[in-house]
């Protein structure tokens, strides 16, 4: 366990890693990093690194679970044993079970599952390194991987977590801010549709803080989805260039 820092801001109001309160960590999106998957993306938010792969639409292995009017979405959020401070057992934890669910529910509003009845679209997310914000980075990666797989989507989705540390709202909280802060509020949205698709709050906030935080998240998500689009465009060009 790391120690709780004495304070979360220096004398200039900067955060421990030098960022301002409404500043993202460097975001990196890499499309098509795997050869077998139908689509894939490697996304990093600072030291947080996740990889997402998409298979489908394909005939489901678990037949009993077929939906007659649309595709079933399957999501597995999983942390690599080496991704955490202490080695993590590979068996799925209750946290991973919950996160798989909320990530699925953050993508379902945008995937056009009605076009592929009786099929499965499988999304596998592996957290390679965890430094805060893994679920929101996973949503960004899954969205990009879905697009890379050519699966029709109403819009792209991106995610980011808002934190509250020393009573101040901060954008894209890192692990120390998450572990020792007062609140962690992960948000995902599809800016092109104006839709919030994930919302969780783990901590305490006034109503005003909740609104301020949500607005801060939505603005950042616009920029993240812009990055997604750019990465997808570049990846398409690459293919063309081959």
């Amino acid at each position, binding site marked *: 366990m790391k120690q709780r820092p004495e304070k979360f801001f220096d004398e200039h109001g900067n955060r421990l890693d030098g960022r301002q309160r409404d500043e993202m960590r460097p975001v990196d999106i890499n499309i098509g990093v795997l050869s077998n998957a139908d689509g894939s993306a490697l996304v990093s938010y600072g030291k947080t690194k996740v990889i997402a792969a998409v298979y489908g639409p394909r005939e489901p292995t678990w037949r009993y*679970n077929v939906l007659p009017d649309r595709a079933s979405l399957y999501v*597995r959020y999983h942390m690599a044993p080496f991704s955490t401070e202490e080695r993590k057992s590979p068996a799925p934890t209750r946290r991973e079970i919950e996160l798989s669910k909320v990530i699925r529910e953050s993508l379902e*509003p945008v995937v056009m599952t009605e076009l592929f009845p009786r099929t499965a679209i499988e999304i596998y997310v592996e957290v390679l390194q965890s430094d805060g914000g893994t679920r929101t980075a996973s949503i960004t990666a899954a969205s990009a991987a879905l697009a890379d797989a050519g699966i029709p989507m109403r819009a792209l989705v991106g995610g980011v977590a808002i934190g509250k540390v020393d009573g101040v709202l901060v954008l894209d909280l890192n692990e120390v801010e998450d572990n020792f802060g007062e609140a962690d509020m992960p948000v995902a949205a599809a800016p092109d549709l104006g839709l919030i698709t994930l919302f969780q709050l783990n901590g305490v906030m*006034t109503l005003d803080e909740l609104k301020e935080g949500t607005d801060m998240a939505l603005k950042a998500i616009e920029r993240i989805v812009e990055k997604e689009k750019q990465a997808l465009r570049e990846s398409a060009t690459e293919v063309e260039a081959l």
Partner: protein
Amino acid sequence: MSATPYRTPVVSKVKLETILNMYRRGMRTDNRDLYSPRNLNVQVGVIEKANGSALVKLGNTQVIVGIKLGIGRPFEDTPNEGVLQVNSELVPMASPLFEPGPPDENAVELSRVVDRSLRDPKAVDLGSLVIRPGEKAWVLWIDIYVLDYDGNYFDASMLGVMAALMNTRVPDYEESESGEIIIKKDSPGTPLKLNKRVVLVTTAKIGNYIVVDPNLDEEALAESRLVLAFDEQGTVVGAQKTGSGAYSVDEFYRAVEISRSAAQVYFKLLDSALQKNQGG
């Protein structure tokens, strides 16, 4: 693996139309307005062998909560606190939608949302549950059992948890010479210390409407639900969007405001249900 649910109750288009028509007139199929929860009935102390317990009926949804205190070890990073453990089971008797087996993603989500909404605002005074710092502490087991599921187990469960916690007594104990903690079985004990009370408020988004405390039909029709935790001051102490839909920013803020008012209704319902229970 989380999968798109397939065992969902089927609700006809006609029913959806009927329900939306009623909403337009500010009414619901079970004679409520859009922002009122169902009737609440609470019985505390139903499990004499537990340290605290409550049976809650929110409309036809029934939840029983049992609380057990045992001796354990504090977590390494909180040597001065007792240990809070929340577990819930959606037992198959409660609904044809539930299957036997270990907790599925829905039961895990319920446990974790309740857990966070208690833990983050420090609703339970965990500091009062340490026995010997870093070595011995009470483990507070909260077991939620959904017995009959007619929609909205979130709110019903948290009301049951609150009633059971308010009804919980921490046993007296003594230390043996060798330092062992011996619980005095039939001692009166002391009431568990609570710092604050918390409720969960679930709203469902159906069409353009936001309704409080959805019943099973409404949950089946809802695109999405928002579960918000409030304390008595109206501070938000937890949140979870659940379900496969999405919210526009406007809808979202509207749901938050509606929920905040409903939270105060729940606190009042809980008080009067507890009073009735004691009176009876």
